[in-house]
Structure formats: structure tokens, C-alpha cells
């Protein structure tokens, strides 16, 4: 999901890097308002929208999201970014709504999905008009037009047009959302319904305008650095595939950024594996037909909000992040614990986790490396992972969790695993069907195709990352 290079992604990473650099230099408040001007200087021909001013405005709001704000919280358009920097440094809580929509960037998409093109001949038969159940079609200048306030996107006009003059224009974010959680308001701006949202991050990747943004915790983390607190990183196992370097160098680079210690979440994965295997054995003995994994927070949110009938089958074992944070908290009672991970779903999980304080995405940590001028390959390799089972490092690749549990069970019980990776609209229906019939007795579900290595915030292409992680697991 995250790995497809496009300009919206590059702009986001450039902004992150600039913010991180200014934070490191202690000049963010002083210079943040210059960033949009620097990226879109006077006379710039590198314009994405109607004009330079709109581009700058959009950049400003994207920065606001990176400072951790909800765009709709803006009260006065003249409030400079410097003021948000000051507020962010005073802020004591992060919100549990991890996304915000940059309204200035949104609204470019059509309201009705069906559009009548110039191919319309304004024929006599007019089957579009006759068959429209909502009376949404009128004729103007000899051509059909759709009234978007009446259109319900049924597609009858397209089906009936003899000239194929009607085209379907998708709204990418809405189309990508597996659960219908994002939709337009009367002004054409997308809103996220958190009663439905499963934090899969698909809208964030799908929007070609980069209008859906994660609210970053970067400010909180730099504040902790500034206050000389102990900041400890918990790194998701997927990180091993994010740079073309051994894990030892990645850990070394994170330490170089100023983190006090780096703990591999693969350590917690070992606990998850053991507990999951024990729970599985118990449940099978009790006659339950199947059990599903629980380590993907996007999947568990899907069950909670959309597939309640599956809830009794979801394992009660906690995620690797949970166990890792629990162990780390014991060792560092006063430290700030920062989870470094691949996706929005994990950002949501950090809100709920009793021990983890903040989250940095792979994209953000990558931007921090760039800002600090750190080349990961050149960093001093750090010791990693004494006593971690290699199978724990395989969690982020589809099949990894089921594989680790299977290995743990070592043939003691009948174990037939099935893996579902990638949640979309059809998959939600399939998951609903599991309750009636399931072909295996252990179901692994991950919201992203290919597993966590394909989360919405990854840097590397997931095939490359999977290969790298595969090598690590073999060791």
C-alpha cells in the first residue's frame, strides 16, 4: 500500500524532513511559516493546483497535521504556524482520532460518481432520463446533465446510454475504504466517521491529493528529547525490511537520533506466539471450530465495528507491541516509550496501550534520519536480539503469525491455518461468512495485502521488504 511512489507521498516526506530538521536545530517556531514559501517560491513553475497561493495554503495545512492538529480546529485563518508550534509544545494529550482531512486539498472530486460526457448526442429516446429512478437527469443545450443533489449513483444512466456517453468517476478515498467510513459533506469535503473507521489507512494512500493526513506525534517526541527525558524506541519487526541495511545498522541509526534504548517488538512477538498457541490448544479442546489472530488492530477494529458475529472467535492474546511495552515499562518506569511502526492502525493502538506513549511511522523515522544527515548504512551497528526466536521477526509478513504459532504447537494438535491478507469490501463479506464455514481452524488476518510490510506508512516496497525479512527469519 504505502510503497507506491507518487508526488503526494514525496511532498509529505519533504515536509516531514523539513520539520524534523528545524526541530533538531531548535528553529521550528522561527522558520516554520517559511516552509510553504520555500517549497513554492515566487515564480515557481512547479505548481500542483490552480495557483501558487493555493499550493502554499495546502502545504500549510499539511504542516498543521504534522504538528499534530486537526485541520478543522483552525479558528482563525491568519493564525501562523509558529503559534501552532507553541501550542503543540504545550499540549499534554494526543487525540484518539488519528486522521485529519485537509479540506483545502480535498473537494476536487466529483459529488456524483456518474458524469455525462460530450459524447452525449441528446438523442430522442433519452433512456437515461426515462430510466433514472430519482429524476436526476435534465437536458441542457441538447445534452444530458446529472443533478448531483439528486443522483444516488445507481448507474442506470450508464447502463442504458446507447452511445456510452456516461462515465463512472471514482472518489478514490471512498472507493478504497472497506467499510464506508469516509464520505462527503454538503460542501464536498470528506469526513471520517470514527464509529466505522477501522484505521486501515487505505484512504490515506488512495487520495491523489494527499488530503488525508495522519496527525503526527513528532512534536511530543522532540519535546521529550528537549526536556532530556529518557526516550525509548520499540521497533516493529517490519522495520528490518525498510532500509537496504542489516537490522543492526537500523538500530544503531535510531540510537544516533538520541533514543536512549531500542527494543525489538519481535521480543513481544515471542510472548504472543506462546500465548496464542496455548490459547489455541485450549479452545480446540473446548470444541471451538476455529480461532483467529488478534495482532492486527485494524482487523480487530473491523470485527468490533462491523463483524460482531466473529468476536467470540478472536483470540484474547495481546499484540507483540503490548507485551513489549509491558516489559519495557518495567525496565524504564519513567521513560517515554515510542513505538516505531508501519501503519495508522498501530498509531491507534498506541492510544489504547497502557504503556506506549507515542508513535512514529517508518516514514517519519526515515524523514528524521534524512533531517539528521544519518545514512543508515554508515551508522554504528548495535547489538540486537539476543534470545529472540527468529519466527518472531517473521510476524510482519503474511503467514508469519500463523507460521510462528504452528511451529510452537509442534504437531501436538491438529493445526490447519488459513491466511487472509488485505481487507477490502469483499473481504469483509468473506470474513462474515467464516462463522458459517471455515476451511481451517486457525485464521490469520492482516488488513494489508502481504502483511505489515505493506502498511500505509512504509518506505520500502513490500516485496523487497518481505525478502529481506525472510532472510532474517532463516538465520
Amino acid at each position: 500500500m504505502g510503497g507506491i511512489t507518487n508526488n503526494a507521498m514525496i511532498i509529505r516526506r519533504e515536509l516531514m524532513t523539513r520539520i524534523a530538521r528545524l526541530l533538531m536545530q531548535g528553529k521550528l517556531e522561527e522558520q516554520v511559516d517559511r516552509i510553504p514559501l520555500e517549497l513554492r517560491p515566487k515564480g515557481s513553475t512547479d505548481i500542483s493546483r490552480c495557483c501558487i497561493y493555493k499550493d502554499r495554503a495546502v502545504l500549510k495545512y499539511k504542516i498543521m497535521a504534522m504538528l499534530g492538529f486537526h485541520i478543522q480546529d483552525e479558528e482563525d485563518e491568519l493564525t501562523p504556524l509558529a503559534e501552532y508550534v507553541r501550542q503543540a509544545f504545550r499540549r499534554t494529550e494526543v487525540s484518539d482520532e488519528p486522521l485529519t482531512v485537509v479540506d483545502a486539498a480535498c473537494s476536487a472530486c466529483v459529488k456524483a460518481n456518474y458524469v455525462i460526457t460530450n459524447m452525449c448526442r441528446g438523442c430522442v429516446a433519452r433512456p437515461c432520463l426515462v430510466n433514472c429512478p430519482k429524476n436526476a437527469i435534465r437536458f441542457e443545450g441538447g445534452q444530458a446533465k446529472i443533478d448531483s443533489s439528486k443522483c444516488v449513483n445507481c448507474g442506470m444512466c450508464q447502463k442504458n446510454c446507447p452511445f456510452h456517453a456516461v462515465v463512472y468517476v471514482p472518489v478514490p478515498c471512498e472507493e478504497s475504504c472497506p467499510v464506508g467510513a469516509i464520505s462527503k459533506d454538503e460542501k464536498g469535503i470528506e469526513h471520517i466517521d470514527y464509529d466505522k473507521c477501522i484505521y486501515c489507512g487505505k484512504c490515506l494512500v488512495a487520495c491523489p491529493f494527499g488530503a488525508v493526513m495522519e496527525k503526527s506525534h513528532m512534536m511530543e517526541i522532540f519535546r521529550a528529547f528537549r526536556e532530556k527525558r529518557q526516550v525509548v524506541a520499540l521497533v516493529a519487526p517490519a522495520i528490518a525490511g525498510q532500509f537496504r541495511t542489516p537490522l543492526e545498522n537500523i538500530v544503531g541509526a535510531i540510537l544516533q537520533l538520541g533514543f536512549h534504548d531500542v527494543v525489538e517488538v519481535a521480543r513481544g512477538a515471542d510472548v504472543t506466539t506462546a500465548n496464542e498457541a496455548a490459547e489455541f490448544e485450549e479452545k480446540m479442546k473446548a470444541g471451538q471450530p476455529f480461532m483467529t489472530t488478534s495482532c492486527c488492530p485494524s482487523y480487530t477494529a473491523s470485527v468490533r465495528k462491523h463483524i460482531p458475529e466473529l468476536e467470540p472467535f478472536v483470540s484474547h492474546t495481546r499484540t507483540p507491541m503490548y507485551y513489549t511495552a509491558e516489559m519495557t515499562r518495567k525496565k524504564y518506569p519513567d521513560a517515554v516509550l515510542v513505538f516505531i511502526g508501519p501503519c495508522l492502525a498501530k498509531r491507534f493502538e498506541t492510544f489504547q496501550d497502557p504503556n506506549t506513549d507515542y508513535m512514529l511511522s517508518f516514514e517519519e523515522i526515515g524523514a528524521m534520519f534524512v533531517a539528521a544527515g544519518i545514512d543508515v548504512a554508515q551508522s554504528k551497528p548495535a547489538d540486537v536480539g539476543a534470545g529472540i526466536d527468529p519466527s518472531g521477526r517473521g510476524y510482519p509478513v503474511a503467514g508469519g503469525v500463523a507460521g510462528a504459532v504452528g511451529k510452537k504447537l509442534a504437531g501436538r494438535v491438529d493445526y490447519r491455518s488459513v491466511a487472509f491478507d488485505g481487507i477490502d469490501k469483499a473481504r469483509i463479506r468473506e470474513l462474515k461468512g467464516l462463522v458459517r464455514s471455515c476451511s481451517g481452524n486457525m485464521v490469520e488476518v492482516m488488513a494489508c495485502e502481504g502483511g505489515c510490510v505493506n502498511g500505509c506508512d512504509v518506505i520500502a516496497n513490500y516485496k523487497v521488504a518481505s525478502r529481506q525479512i525472510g532472510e532474517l527469519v532463516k538465520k
Partner: protein
Amino acid sequence: MENKLSVKVCTGTLCYVMGGAELQLLESYLPAEIAARVDIKGAPCLDCCNRTDAGKAPFVQVGDRIVAEASLFKVAEVIKEMLKAEGKWAE
């Protein structure tokens, strides 16, 4: 090996983060007859990111030419062009 056109894909952190990660797929992206004529390697920071005149990351070096803002498509085009110029390949 000697006759092959050398392609160095920067795997330095800056390039990697700014979209270079995707270029790891170059080998499988190229048509087989072209892939056979090039020698693709990952390279540590090509030191273009520190220069002001080199353009924007990610960088790839094809022969002696630096490709800035490299994408799979752009790199493939440069490779074809250079192979053609060297008379090693014709469309």
C-alpha cells in the same frame, strides 16, 4: 560482464526515503532483453544528495550519467538510450 552497462541504484537513506525504495524493482521491471545487457547494483550514497547542482533525489547512475528524480520508467528510458548510443541494442 565487462560489456554490460553499469547501473547503480542509490540505496543511501535520503534517496531511499524520497522514493528510491521503489527502484529496487528495476531488474524485474526491465524487459528481459534489456535486463540481460545491464549490470544493476545497489550503491551506497552516490554523494549527489550533498550537491546543489545534481537535482533532486532519488538518484541512479547509468554508465557515467546521473539520473535525478529517478523513477522506474525514467531509468529504463535512459538505459535504452545509452544502449542504443553504444550500438548494443536496437528497438
